[in-house]
């Protein structure tokens, strides 16, 4: 979650791996075999578009809620937040609060209305009452960009973790792992469609939450079930090692404006993430969509409370120095804690869960991006809405293959990049380009095509531009410890934007541009707006589940 990722001054002598790679690989292989079997079973009924994109809309709210948790609790949340808490204490905890509170935006304003209005993609909702072609193209571009940055982060994380977990060292081994992850993901998505992907996410979420729960209670038991004792010991351990008081705010985020900017992106980004939105189409009704979010909020919230304990547990039992020195850097706090608690077996389980996490999340992202390419670009823009569902699904599968290949190449290229930067960028773009249009579309009568285009492109371009010229890409001073700049590029400095996260500028800009674009255009489709609003609130005319 920080610049420390990938930098590994070798404090750990000779052997940089902990645990037994054979056990780690064995447990992971078991997960792959079980999920592949389920995916193959699920693939029997994947011919229709509703089956392929939305799992036939036949999942229950509880199943979908667990799958959402599986989709959302990515490697960045599990490994990244636990690590950030272990190193930066309270500031790491702040991250998880933004990620959780964000779900209320989805629950109250977006999930149910979107489920009623749309069919397969985010663009279905955005283009419903506007001019189809331009809005769909814009929404599809934004979907692809957000999903791609998120995907890159996961792939880069997969490669980085391997060094620690499987004992595979060197660039070649890490690249090989990215290729294996990519091929598995392509297989899940092409054969399993949304149904297969959902089951992979459900299994992964259950494993992840149980694994974290076991570790949490194990840690608490070591401290006499007292949170206060744990916090006290962890801060003492950190201070003894020359660190600061972990309970004080400000260890990670020095610049207040930067932190406010990040907080905005976190809390407003979730309800604009296309791969999260697409999950709401997998349930039969808006009531089940609501139930999904309720389940997701409970699971995600409880999980983040676990990461708080795990982070402080790692700070005390493993120690910041050992975490930073490990091959995976900050991201290795949770696996190292598992090894400390339960030896090779627990480390093997947690490692396998971490890989399962990456696989499940990348599969969800790939199906979202491929659905958008096929349903929004191919069918609506290229074929002008005349493609048959069979053709659409065929194109989506080809798109998944191509996107998977690009993700593998991009993942190899992004190896060693800062995961948090890529994920925060995805959240900032989602909050700037997608959320304003979604909210305006659902709640503002006057909203029109120009407003949507200005908001989507304005949010997208401003967020990306500000990131390119931010200190994340170039110009951070060289860290005396690692002898490298924490920026993406070394040795150059072309930054002029002072903040790491563009949210505080690009999110309001997305809203303002949507407003100005709308009021300067006179387009208004009364009949489509009526259809959309009646449908969003009453569910009349909404897509129903497919029956066999």
């Amino acid at each position, binding site marked *: 979650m920080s610049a420390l990722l990938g930098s590994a001054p070798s404090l750990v002598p000779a052997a940089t791996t902990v645990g037994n790679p054979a056990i780690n690989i064995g447990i992971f292989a078991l997960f792959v075999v079980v999920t592949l079997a389920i995916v193959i079973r699920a693939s029997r009924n994947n011919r229709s578009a509703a089956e392929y994109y939305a799992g036939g809309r036949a999942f229950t709210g509880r199943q979908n809620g667990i799958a959402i948790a599986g989709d959302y609790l990515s490697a960045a949340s599990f490994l990244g937040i636990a690590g950030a808490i272990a190193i930066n204490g*309270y500031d790491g*905890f*702040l991250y998880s*609060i*933004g990620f*959780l*509170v964000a*779900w*209320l*935006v989805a*629950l*109250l*304003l977006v999930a*149910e209305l979107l489920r009623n209005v749309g069919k397969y993609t985010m663009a279905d909702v955005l283009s419903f009452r506007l001019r189809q072609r331009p809005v769909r193209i814009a929404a599809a571009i934004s979907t692809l960009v957000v999903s791609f940055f998120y995907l890159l982060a996961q792939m880069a994380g997969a490669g980085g973790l391997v060094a620690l977990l499987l004992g595979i060292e060197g660039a070649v081994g890490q690249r090989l792992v990215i290729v294996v992850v990519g091929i598995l993901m392509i297989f899940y998505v092409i054969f399993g469609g949304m149904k297969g992907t959902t089951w992979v996410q459900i299994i992964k979420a259950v494993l992840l939450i149980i694994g974290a729960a076991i570790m949490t209670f194990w840690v608490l038991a070591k401290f006499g079930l*007292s*949170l*206060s*004792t744990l*916090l*006290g010991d962890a*801060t003492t351990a950190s201070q003894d090692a020359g660190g600061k*008081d972990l*309970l*004080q*705010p*400000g260890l990670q*985020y020095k610049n*207040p404006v930067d*932190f*406010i900017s990040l*907080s905005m992106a976190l*809390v407003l980004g979730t309800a604009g993430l296309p791969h999260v939105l697409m999950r709401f189409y997998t349930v039969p009704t808006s*009531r089940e969509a*609501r*139930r999904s*979010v*309720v389940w997701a*909020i*409970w699971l995600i*919230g409880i999980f*983040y*409370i676990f990461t708080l304990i795990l982070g402080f547990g790692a700070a005390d039992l493993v120690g910041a120095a050992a975490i930073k020195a490990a091959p995976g850097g900050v991201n290795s706090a949770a696996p190292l804690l598992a090894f400390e608690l339960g030896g090779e077996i627990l480390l093997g389980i947690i490692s396998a869960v971490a890989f399962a996490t990456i696989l499940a999340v990348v599969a969800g992202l790939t199906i979202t991006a491929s659905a958008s390419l096929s349903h929004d670009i191919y069918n609506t823009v290229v074929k002008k809405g005349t493609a048959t569902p069979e053709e659409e699904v065929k194109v989506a599968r080809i798109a998944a293959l191509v996107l998977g290949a690009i993700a593998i190449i991009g993942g190899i290229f992004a190896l060693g990049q800062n995961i948090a930067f890529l994920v925060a960028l995805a959240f900032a773009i989602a909050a700037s380009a997608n959320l304003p249009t979604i909210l305006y579309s659902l*709640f503002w009568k006057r909203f029109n095509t120009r407003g949507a285009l200005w908001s989507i492109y304005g949010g997208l371009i401003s967020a990306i531009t500000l990131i390119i010229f931010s200190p994340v890409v170039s110009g951070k001073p060289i860290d005396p410890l690692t002898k490298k700049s924490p920026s993406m590029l070394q040795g150059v400095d072309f930054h002029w934007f002072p903040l790491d996260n563009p949210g505080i500028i690009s999110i309001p800009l997305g809203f303002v541009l949507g407003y100005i674009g709308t009021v300067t255009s006179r387009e208004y489709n*009364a*009949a489509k*707006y*009526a*259809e959309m*609003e*009646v*449908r969003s*609130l*009453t*569910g*009349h*005319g909404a897509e129903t589940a497919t029956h066999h």
Partner: protein
Amino acid sequence: MSKEAPERVVDDPNVAMQNSPEFDQLRSKFRRFVFPLTALFLAWYFLYVLLSVFAKDFMGTRVLGNITWGLILGLLQFVSTFTITMVYARWADRVFDPEAEALAQKMGVTK
């Protein structure tokens, strides 16, 4: 299609429903519940964020053993999120859904 007022699309069942007093009531009921709640949780979240960056000493003060104000307020963010989730789900299941379904039924008949 009625010939009297084609541009007002009065014959469109969706437009008719959208302009009906029942629908108006459903919409304002939804917005009156959801908008203030959204404003509330966003204000509370940003208050917490601002305290964390501008009132560091207060947030770092230990209150119960080693538990600080920052942690207490942070955990209260979890509590408020869970509470709002339950309150909304209960309201939507009991109050909103029956009324929305009644209107959907009506649309089904008019169609």
